[in-house]
């Protein structure tokens, strides 16, 4: 069994090495592709270390771009959690609110978040506020949706039991419905994080003066694919890092709940 796993591990490693090898061969050795469309992997690594400390060619170091993107993304994300989750719970819990809010929400849901970016830029300028609101909208949708579905999953029987024992409607919400919905809410938070991170990159590409999206968009104009690839990998890495952090928080939360019992 272990031998088998080793075999597949070796295959995986070979696959990555072969991929990088072909990339290197096509770019640096055989020069099949122009370096203005695809640089060789060694250049990409060099550019990464160069960008850590140098501002050229796009006006800020990698760290500054990362800070700027992260700040806005996390701000919008926090806002979408704070507003989205209670809104979803409210919509699922109260019938009149559900009837009135759901149709409009279903329509807004169909609009990709970044479509709002240009309008927010006109209304609020190209600074943090417009991007924050765009991210908030795209992050809020999965939060609302999952919280809504989660609350709707509550079993009628559980509610009946609670009522039989004289629970008020408020107690039923906090002691029965929300605990049932918690896994869904957490899933919503995770999906929302991905949406926020994607939207900040897109919004920065549309109009901005800093951030990772801005960096890769600028470097397209001056034919620097090495910086673009560094930017893309950084975006991917930061995205995974944020998701992993959220996973840790999630586990801590769930553990805390078990401990309480």
């Amino acid at each position, binding site marked *: 069994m272990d031998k088998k796993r080793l075999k*597949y*591990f070796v*295959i*995986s*490693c070979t*696959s*990555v090495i072969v*991929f990088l090898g072909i990339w290197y061969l096509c770019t640096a050795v055989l020069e099949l592709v122009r370096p*203005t*469309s*695809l640089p060789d992997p060694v250049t990409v690594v060099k550019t990464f270390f160069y960008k850590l400390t140098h501002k050229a060619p796009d006006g800020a170091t990698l760290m500054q771009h990362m800070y700027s993107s992260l700040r806005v993304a996390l701000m919008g994300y926090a806002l979408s959690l704070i507003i989205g989750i209670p809104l979803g719970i409210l919509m699922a819990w109260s019938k009149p609110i559900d*009837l*009135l*809010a*759901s*149709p*409009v929400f*279903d*329509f*807004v849901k*169909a*609009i*990709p*978040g*970044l*479509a*709002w*970016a*240009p*309008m927010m*830029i*006109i*209304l609020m300028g190209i600074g943090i506020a417009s991007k924050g609101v765009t991210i908030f909208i795209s992050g809020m949708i999965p939060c609302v949706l999952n919280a809504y579905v989660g609350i709707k999953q509550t079993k009628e029987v559980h509610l009946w039991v609670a009522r039989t024992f004289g629970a008020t409607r408020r107690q039923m919400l906090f002691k029965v419905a929300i605990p049932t919905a918690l896994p869904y809410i957490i899933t919503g938070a995770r999906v929302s994080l*991905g949406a926020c*991170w*994607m939207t900040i*990159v*897109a919004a920065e*590409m*549309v*109009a901005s003066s800093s951030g*990772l*999206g801005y960096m*890769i*968009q600028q*470097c*397209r104009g001056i*034919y620097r*694919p090495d910086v*673009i*690839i560094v*930017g*893309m*990998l950084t*975006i*991917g*890495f930061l*995205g*995974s890092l944020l*998701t992993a952090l959220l996973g840790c928080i999630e586990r801590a939360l769930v553990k805390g709940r078990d401990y309480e019992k």
Partner: protein
Amino acid sequence: MKNKAKQKQIAIKILATIFSFLIFGLLWEMLVRFSDVGRVMPGPLETLQSFFEHFTEKYSAYTLPEHVWRSLRRVLTGYFFAAIAAIALGILMASYKTIDAIVSPLFNMVRPIPPVAWIPLAILWFGINDGSKYFLIFWASFLSMVQNVYAGTKSADPKLIGAAKMLGANDGHIFLTIVLPSAVPYIFSGLQLGINSAWAMAIGSEMIRSTDGVGWLIIRGMDNNNLLQELVGILAVGIVGFALASVLRGVEAKLCRWNKRGT
């Protein structure tokens, strides 16, 4: 008796929907009328009027439906090939460990990168015209579909497969009668996710660089400080997005009647 109750429920729902949009429109109108926003932002009636006017009037070279069709054509082409590729690769990866071992590490390297981040590179590779958009839409919907197909193929009950093997079914037979039926619901939720990301990607890539399409409408509205055009664009994006999702949901309900997931 039951039918009547159902009818009543539907009536309430329709009324609530109308009411819901009315309230939304009223809030919007009030925002425009009584605050500074009104100086740049048109009201709901004005937006609707402009929306319908542009069925015949042109934004630059095309009318609104033509712009929508241009975006839609890109989406459907990219999405179609992405669906085929994702279903094929997902099933192959889940069925053959060697393929899984070869593709997974490469896939895991690129998966965390949001598809929009590929826009600059795609433009360098495929030019600023439709080439890069087809690639981006393909890539965005492919990424969101492949995992579902993979998970679906893996979800087949091993006990059933074991039983079939014991009774002498060959691999092809097992695949068609056990693996595929259990994968279909997953594949459909993947297709749903895929069409959403394809549509979002089309808007995104058109916003970055294009000369037509709904994304272009929205971004050109920003460049000209024309919020009316932007709102019409957003309205069109919402309607088409809603329609695409509904069509897929309808198809799924028809095809997978045996496995109705609550949506």
